[in-house]
């Protein structure tokens, strides 16, 4: 993603609606929508007025725009000796608005997984077709801890267009050709930015960092996790785990998937890539009946260690971005920040 000379400036609130009016009109805008009390989801939005700006973060991460929960990866016709494959339809170009810095960092966290040795064309294509509009935070949420991983709540290079709320409007920073394209097509002109964007971000980051409810220091947790692999802590923690998929499905960096074939009555069919969860019982069950992770303890350990250790040792990147969704959504209060503190505590 080549970064051209970043143009920056401010726009007013009504300008924001104009910025998004084009994509919204032709059904290409995905933005946060309050769908139920306490539930904000990224959804297609036809009228910019329908999206919400009063949200700390969405209940489910916007990962689904780049790595959909169910995606047809190929189809076939015929069967037996006569069979041919066909490609799925092209995904639709999208404008994804309202992505917080923790979810923007998640794109970088997932890049080596879907890029890497065997580049994944589906992720690549959706990345190319999606213009990501980031929105800086004004207030840390009750369960956020992004700064613990060195993420600024108001800055993220992954966004094509980065908005930072400044009264009365927004500071807009275009960080890619796609960002500039969106600005140009919307006809919204940027007024001169009062203070230097970088300076403003610096100040805002420091301000917000002081207002986080709790901050963890994850340094050393990777070594702790390695050493405590066999510790009974995991079995004790997993006693209350329901073994459901909530924490993995709301998470912006979980990337595990299953490949499932579906057949129509006439024998033709499609192959789907769908989200899967290492918490599910059958995730590692082998045809022979052997399961390397037979109980919830091993599975919960695998999920937490993937975030706190494995992702880093495989890709040199933290596996967690501190969005706090799994802390908010877990029905039995399995809190990853508490696990980090426990693991480090057990090492001293």
């Amino acid at each position, binding site marked *: 993603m080549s970064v051209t000379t970043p143009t920056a400036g401010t726009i007013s609130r009504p300008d924001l609606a104009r910025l998004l009016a084009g994509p919204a009109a032709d059904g290409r805008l995905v933005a946060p929508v309050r769908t139920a009390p306490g539930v904000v989801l990224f959804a297609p939005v036809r009228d910019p007025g329908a999206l919400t700006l009063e949200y700390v973060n969405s209940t489910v991460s916007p990962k689904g725009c780049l790595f959909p929960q169910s995606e047809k990866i190929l189809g076939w016709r015929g069967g037996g000796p006569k069979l041919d494959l066909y490609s799925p339809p092209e995904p639709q170009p999208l404008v994804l608005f309202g992505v917080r810095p923790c979810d923007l960092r998640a794109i970088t966290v997932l890049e080596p997984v879907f890029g890497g040795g065997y580049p994944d064309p589906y992720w690549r294509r959706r990345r190319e077709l999606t213009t990501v509009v980031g929105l800086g935070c004004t207030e840390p949420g009750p369960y956020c801890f992004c700064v613990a991983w060195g993420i600024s709540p108001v800055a993220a290079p992954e966004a094509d267009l980065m908005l930072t709320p400044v009264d009365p409007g927004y500071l807009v920073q275009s960080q890619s050709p796609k960002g500039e394209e969106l600005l140009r097509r919307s006809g919204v002109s940027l007024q001169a930015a009062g203070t230097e964007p970088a300076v403003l971000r610096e100040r805002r980051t420091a301000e917000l960092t002081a207002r986080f409810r709790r901050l963890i220091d994850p340094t050393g947790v990777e070594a702790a996790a390695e050493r405590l692999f066999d510790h009974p802590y995991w079995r004790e923690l997993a006693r*209350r785990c*329901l073994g459901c*998929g909530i924490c993995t499905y709301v998470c912006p960096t979980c990337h595990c998937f299953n490949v499932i074939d579906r057949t129509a009555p006439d024998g033709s069919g499609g192959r789907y890539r769908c989200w899967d969860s290492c918490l599910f019982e*059958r995730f590692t069950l082998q045809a022979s009946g052997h399961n390397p992770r037979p109980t919830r303890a091993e599975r919960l350990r695998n999920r937490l260690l993937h975030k706190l250790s494995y992702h880093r040792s495989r890709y040199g990147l933290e596996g967690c971005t501190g969005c706090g969704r799994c802390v*908010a959504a877990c029905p039995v*209060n399995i809190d990853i920040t508490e696990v980090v503190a426990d693991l480090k505590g057990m090492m001293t």
Partner: protein
Amino acid sequence: MKEITLNLRARAMELLAGGRVDLVIGYGTGSLPEFVRPVFVDRPERAEELIFNPLCAQNLTKYILDYRDQPGRVAVVVKGCDSRSINQMMADGQLDREKVFLLGINCPGLADPVLLSVAAGRRDWQVEAEPEGFRLRWPGGERLLPRDEFLMYRCRTCEHHNPVVSDVLLGDPILQGETPDRFAEVRRIESLTPEERAAYWDALFARCLRCYACRNACPACTCRECIFDRPEPEWVARVVAPQSNLAYHLVRAMHVAGRCVDCGECDRVCPVAIPLREINRKILKELAVLFGAPTPGTSHPAPEPLATFAVTDPEVWL
């Protein structure tokens, strides 16, 4: 609820110290004041981890199944709604009553965390039950909230403040009073036109993540191997789509039909707040209409509406 907590701790310590049970499953404080979580106390000195406050919503009875095949006895804290699960699990042959000690709690009604967050305008708060209502405290503020406006949805139509089965009662009995209509929401949905009903449920199931939290939290979902996990035959497509989400919820509702005790856990654990219980409550209403059946688990042994045949049963399709 403070004296309930003290009674609970004392009784748990006594049971553990006396070797009557090897484990006490109850509620404990969470990683943050607004969270409560299941705790598994296996030593007398850990008894003071046990608490009871207006957030203790989880139905702990399903955890008993994890210890069913292990030696020793387990004690579990049960509220009124949870205790119906005990009766139902016994009726399903899932529970050996001798191996379980029931710490019954007379529950006056719990607070709805979502409503409390709206009242406090933030999510980091603490709540305590007081005779006149819920005392809500957050950094820099405090309010006394009227009880019936902030009760959890399930508690507004509570049928059993007092456990229907227990080995000991840890609070003073609460006057049950007349149960308000539990099927108001079901009737509202029934009053819609078929197209409106279809649109209503489609919109809800469209946001279902198929995370299976509703199934994993449900005390009536006790199959050893669930059909939704088995790829062969794939009764319901594992691919998340409107059709398979609808099929999943209908099939699950039918599988727990006549056994769902209306404890409200599926509602509570759903990460995208789908009012799942209105499906189960529709079935409960039909069971009441067709067979005059009370809420499953109200008593044990009791004839199960879908497992027994009576000559008076209606034969609509004969």
